[in-house]
């Protein structure tokens, strides 16, 4: 197996970090929905914290994407 084939396989494996992001964001959405259902008047603050949380959780998945792009473009 030459280097570029291994690089492509590595790029595919690198994108597995998306699993963590999917799980984390799903959990966060569940908790946010529960909190809004309990107290609808606080929904503004809950939405703010929720959006920030999903953007931060997305970042780790993006690191995997960047590694994959670096591997594919070499």
């Amino acid at each position, binding site marked *: 197996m030459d280097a570029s084939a291994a690089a492509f396989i590595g790029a595919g494996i690198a994108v597995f970090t998306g699993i963590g992001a999917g799980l984390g964001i799903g959990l966060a959405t569940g908790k946010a929905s529960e909190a809004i259902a309990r107290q609808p008047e606080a929904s503004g603050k809950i939405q703010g914290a929720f959006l*920030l949380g999903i*953007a931060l959780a*997305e*970042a780790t998945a993006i690191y995997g994407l*960047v590694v994959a792009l670096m591997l594919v*473009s070499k």
Partner: protein
Amino acid sequence: MSAASEGAMSIGEKINEGIAIKTVFTINAFGLSIPISDTVIMSWVVMAGLFIFAWFATRRLKEVPRGFQSLLEGFYDFANKFLEENIGHHGKDFVPFLGSVFLFLCTANLLPIFTPVAGFGFEPLFELKPLTRDINVTAAFAIVTMIVVVFSSIRYKGVGGFVKSFAKPLPFMVPFNALEYVVKPLSLTLRLFGNILGAFIIMKLIEAIVPVGVPPILSLYFDLFDGLIQAVVFTFLSTVYIAEAIE
């Protein structure tokens, strides 16, 4: 994908050419030759646009605001309140910097929506691509933010206070706190770069496969929503880092 093999270039090559950053011209000055890429020119366009907007919007300000001026005052008030709530009573000092970062990132991420497309016999003369897909641009923003954090920490706590803050809350945290000053700009850079570049590649893929009808709907999520959220998150995280550094 038989359509790909019939075209002049495969989809992979089209995408590689689409995301490449080309050097447009080179400035030869003082014995150095500085390559100017198209993202630099786009950032000049965004800067010029923001200057012109600011000049026209603040030309004839009245004591009692009417119309557009009251909108601007509402935004400025919101920025003041938001920063004061998050940073504390020094929040007002950071409104110019963080407000400019937010405006620049919003404009830079939303400007590519106006790229002209081919149709009705025209070929597009130019194509607007998001300027934050270049890691140099996002790294510049992150480094400037970290410089602001370090300098504001020194200004409000003194050099001794800044050095002592590495040992909080316990002395063995010194290497971890030092590592934070490397990890924070790195994560700011990669988050913005990866999100915008990823959205751009996905939109190119969608346009290559289904050119009609589907791209505008998905572009609402990928270009608009993603671009705005990344600008908000970058600014909010910068606010939180400054608040931590000032305490």
